[in-house]
C-alpha cells in the first residue's frame, strides 16, 4: 500500500483529500503546519507528498518546503504535487501553473493540482507519479 503525506493548513482540504485517497486504497497522513518538514517527511517516509502553497506564516511556504526537500539527498527523488488555488497576489503574479513552467529551478515540484479539488484529476496525477 502506497503512502501519501499531505501538508496543508486547511483542515477541510486535508479531510477531502484524505477521503478520496483512502477510498482509492492509499495510506494517508497529514500535517497542518510547515514545521520541521524534512524531519517529518523522513520519519513518515511517504511515497508521495502533496503540498499546499499558502501558509499563514508564509505565503509561498509550499515552494519553500519543496526546495528544502529537494536539497535533502535522501528525499530528492520524492514526488511532490503542489495543491493550491491559482494565486494572483505573490511573486508568481498572474502566471498560470502549466506543465511547461514546472521545472527544477522554477518550482521544484513534479506536478500541480488546482483547488478546488477534482478527484479524477487527483487520482490520475497520483497514479502517474507513483507509476500505478
Amino acid at each position, binding site marked *: 500500500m502506497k503512502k501519501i503525506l499531505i501538508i496543508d493548513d486547511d483542515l*477541510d482540504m486535508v479531510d477531502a483529500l484524505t*477521503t*478520496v485517497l483512502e477510498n482509492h486504497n492509499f495510506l494517508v497522513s497529514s500535517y497542518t503546519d510547515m514545521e520541521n518538514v524534512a524531519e517529518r517527511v523522513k520519519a513518515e517516509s511517504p511515497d508521495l507528498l502533496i503540498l499546499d502553497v499558502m501558509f499563514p506564516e508564509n505565503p509561498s511556504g509550499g515552494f519553500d518546503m519543496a526546495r528544502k526537500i529537494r536539497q535533502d539527498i535522501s528525499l530528492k527523488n520524492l514526488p511532490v504535487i503542489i495543491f493550491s*488555488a491559482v494565486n494572483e*497576489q505573490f511573486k508568481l503574479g498572474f502566471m498560470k501553473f502549466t506543465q511547461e513552467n514546472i521545472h527544477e529551478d522554477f518550482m521544484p515540484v513534479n506536478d500541480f493540482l488546482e*483547488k*478546488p479539488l477534482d478527484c479524477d484529476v487527483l487520482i490520475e496525477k497520483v497514479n502517474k507519479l507513483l507509476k500505478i
Partner: protein
Amino acid sequence: MKKTNSFQYDLVQNNIHWFIQLRWLTITTILTACLISWIFYPYIHKKFHFPVHEFFWLALALFILNALYLIHSKYIIPKKNFHAYWNLYIQIVIDLILVSVCTYLTGGIETPFIFTFLFHVTLVCIFLNKIQSFFFTTISVLLTETFIVLEFFQAIPQKSLILTDFKIKIYQDADYIIFYIVSIFFISYAIWYLVSTLSDRLKKREAMLAEYNDKLVAVSKERSKFILIAGHEFKAPLAAIQSYAHILLKEYHGKLPEPIAKVVTRIYERCNKLNIQVKEMIQLANITSMAAQDIVKTPCNMKEIAEKIIASLKTIASEKQVSLHFSLEPAFVYGNEEQLEIMLSNLINNAIVYSKEQGEVKVTLKKDGQDVELKVQDRGIGIAPENLEKIFEEHFCAKNAVLHNKYATGLGLAIVKNVLKNHDGNITVESELDKGSTFTLYFKELRNEKNIDH
C-alpha cells in the same frame, strides 16, 4: 513635501518657458514696427519720430537675452532646481528696465505706451507670491517714475514720438507731472493688491483640490487593496466547500438520493460561479490598485500574447462548437504583459461564451498607421444599443448576457477597460442584437526603443 517642491518647480519652469515665448513675440512685434516705420518713413516722419535704430538694437539685445534664458532653463535648471526662480527674477527685472527705456524712447507720459509696465505687474502678481510681487511692483513704479522725474528736470534729453510741442508743454507743468506720478503709484498698487489677492485665493483653491484629489486616489487604492485581501480570504473556504460538494457528487460517501444530489449539484455550480467572480474581483483589484505610471512595462509582442491566449481558449471553444479564426501580424506595444494577457483573455473568452452554437470568432491583429489595432469579432447574442454605454461598468450584466451565460459576473469588460486605461489604449464597440459584436482595441505601436518614455 517632495512632491509639492517638484510640482512648484514644474510650474516655475512652465512660466519661464511661457515668458520666453511671449518675448519672442515681443521681439517680432518690435522688429515689425521698425520695418513698417522704415518702409513708410516718407509718410510718417512728418508727424512721428520713431527711433528705429534704438529699437532695432533693443530687439537684438532682447533676442540674445532670451536665448540665454532659454539655454539656462534647458541645461542648468534641470540640474539645479533653485536656479529656476533666479532665471524668472532676472527676466522680470531686465524686462522692467527695458520697458522703462522703451517708454522713455517713445515719449514717456506723452503716449499710453507708458502703461505697458502694468503687463509685468499683472504677470508677477499671478506667478509670484504677494511679497515678491509687491517688491517687483515697487521696482516698476520706481523705474517708470524715475524716467519721468529725470525728464522733468531735464537730466536726460527729452524724447518724443509726436513731432509737436505737446510734450514740451506737459513737461513744463509741474502739477501735471505730480498728478501723473501719483496716479501711476495708485494704479500700480491697486492692480498689485487686486491681482495678487485673487491669485492667492486661486492658488489656495488649487492646493485644496490637489489635496482632495490625492485623498480620492488614496481611498480608491485602499478600496482595491481591501478587495484584494478579502478576495484571497474568500478563496480558501470557497475551495473547501466546493471540494466537499465535489466528493459528495462523486459518491465517495455513498450514492446520494436524487433530491440531495440535485441540491449538492447546485451548491457546486454556485461555488463555480463564485470562484470566477472572486478571481475576477482579484484581477480587477490588482489592475486598479496601482497607478498607471507605477506599473512595470516592457516591450510586449502582441502577436505572441494573442496566440498564447487563443491556444488556452481552444478547449472552451471546441466545447461550445465555436470555430476560432485568427490573422495576426507581428506588432509590439509597450505595456504590462500580464495585464494585456488578462485583457485579451477576457475579450476572446467573452466572444466565445456569447457566441451561439456553431458560432465563429475572428481575432485580427494589424498595424494601422501609428496604432496597433486588435479586433475581436463574434456572431453571438450581441448587445442592445441602450446597454452599449454600460457594459464597461463594474458588475453590469445585460439581461440577454445573464440568460445566455450563467457565469456572467459583469467584471470582464471592467477589467478590459482598466487595462486599456493603464496603457493609454482605446476601444470601440459595434454590436447588433442577435447578430454579434465587434470590439476593436487601439494601442500606440512600439517601433523602437525611443518610444519608451521611462
